[in-house]
């Protein structure tokens, strides 16, 4: 007798993908940050007075990320980190986690934030498949650019 649970219906994706047997299960943390992303800039960015703006990726490639930051001028710590993306689930989840990491516990020092690694973000997310690694770097590249933008505006850019 045919197992109803295994019956294929119209619209099911059937593929001979070589990765089919490999685990594609995202961690609960990744799913949480994808379904409930933190710190997304929902308002018009023209209304958001950021101290630094960074853009990474390109629309031609399919992935685009913008990060806006506000810095405490006295402590040089990140007060707010907002972002918006045209990216995949992994890019959304990892940038959401990144925005939490740089603003939690009173904010991350900009020197520390510029050296934030994708590996640190992935560790907090409970991992991502290797082939999704490139999605996780978008947010932190845009963050670096936003810090650099802040430093340029304040006369101490590294580049």
């Amino acid at each position: 007798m045919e197992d109803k649970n295994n019956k294929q219906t119209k619209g099911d994706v059937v593929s001979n993908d070589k990765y089919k047997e490999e685990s594609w299960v995202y961690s609960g943390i990744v799913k949480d940050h994808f379904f409930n992303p933190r710190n997304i800039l929902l308002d018009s960015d023209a209304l958001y007075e950021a101290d630094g703006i960074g853009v990474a990726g390109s629309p031609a490639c399919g992935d685009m990320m913008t990060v806006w930051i506000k810095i405490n001028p006295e402590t040089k710590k990140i007060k707010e980190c907002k972002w918006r993306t045209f990216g995949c689930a992994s890019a959304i989840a990892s940038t959401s986690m990144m925005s939490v990491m740089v603003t939690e516990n009173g904010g991350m020092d900009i020197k520390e934030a510029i050296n934030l690694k994708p590996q640190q973000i992935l560790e907090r997310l409970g991992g991502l498949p290797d082939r999704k690694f490139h999605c996780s770097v978008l947010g932190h590249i845009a963050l670096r650019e936003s810090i650099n933008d802040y430093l340029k505006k304040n006369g101490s850019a590294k580049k």
Partner: protein
Amino acid sequence: MDPQKNKLFVLRNRINEADDIATFKFMPVKGKNLPFIAGQFVNVYFLDNRCGGQGKPYSISSIPSDKFLSITVKKIGKFSGALHDLKIGERVKITEPQGYFCPENQMKNIVFLAGGIGITPFYSVIKDYFSKKADKNLFLFYGNKTKKDAVFLKELSDLAKSWERLKIINAFTREPILPSDKKCVTISMNVKNEFKRIDVKMLKKHLKNLNNKHYFICGSIGFVTDLWKELKENQIKEDYIRVESFY
């Protein structure tokens, strides 16, 4: 990145470094070379619609004082394949150098951990320091399958022979001709060959002490993540580790 600072370059020379790796030397079509800090990368674009008009980042393998700008490319994808087919005299667009994978002035003891083609930014940094006879102590751990796969092996060994501040540990994982006991072999005073993958145990053996050093890791995602984890497990603080992965 400021698109206004993109420049036209012409391919002047090509050096085959290994079976699937070549160095491409570009000269600016007009004016001077782009200023950069050793360790930075550039995005390269073809002028026609090859690869859909998209660019790709490559670490610079030349040094800031060179009149040319070179990148060393492993043929692993569509874009790098098209670069390998580039003819001498062809033009490309190269963007303003960028990136933070550069040692800072106050760093005195620097450990470079390179996996395969991950050597390219370090090659630029080491040559740059050598040209300035910088007051640094440099340690390079360079992982490859075999000697044949290792680009700049001779050039780096020659640098280490003439500069006591540079020490090199080559780590070969699939070298067909092994010493019978697979033990570390001394090539010269500053160059040694190991026959296993790079890990913290190897670092401890050659560095004696992991502390008071800055670590720069460059290579595949797996290579970088494994070594980053191991260093953290050995109480090396995040501030002392910089990473760059190829993906």
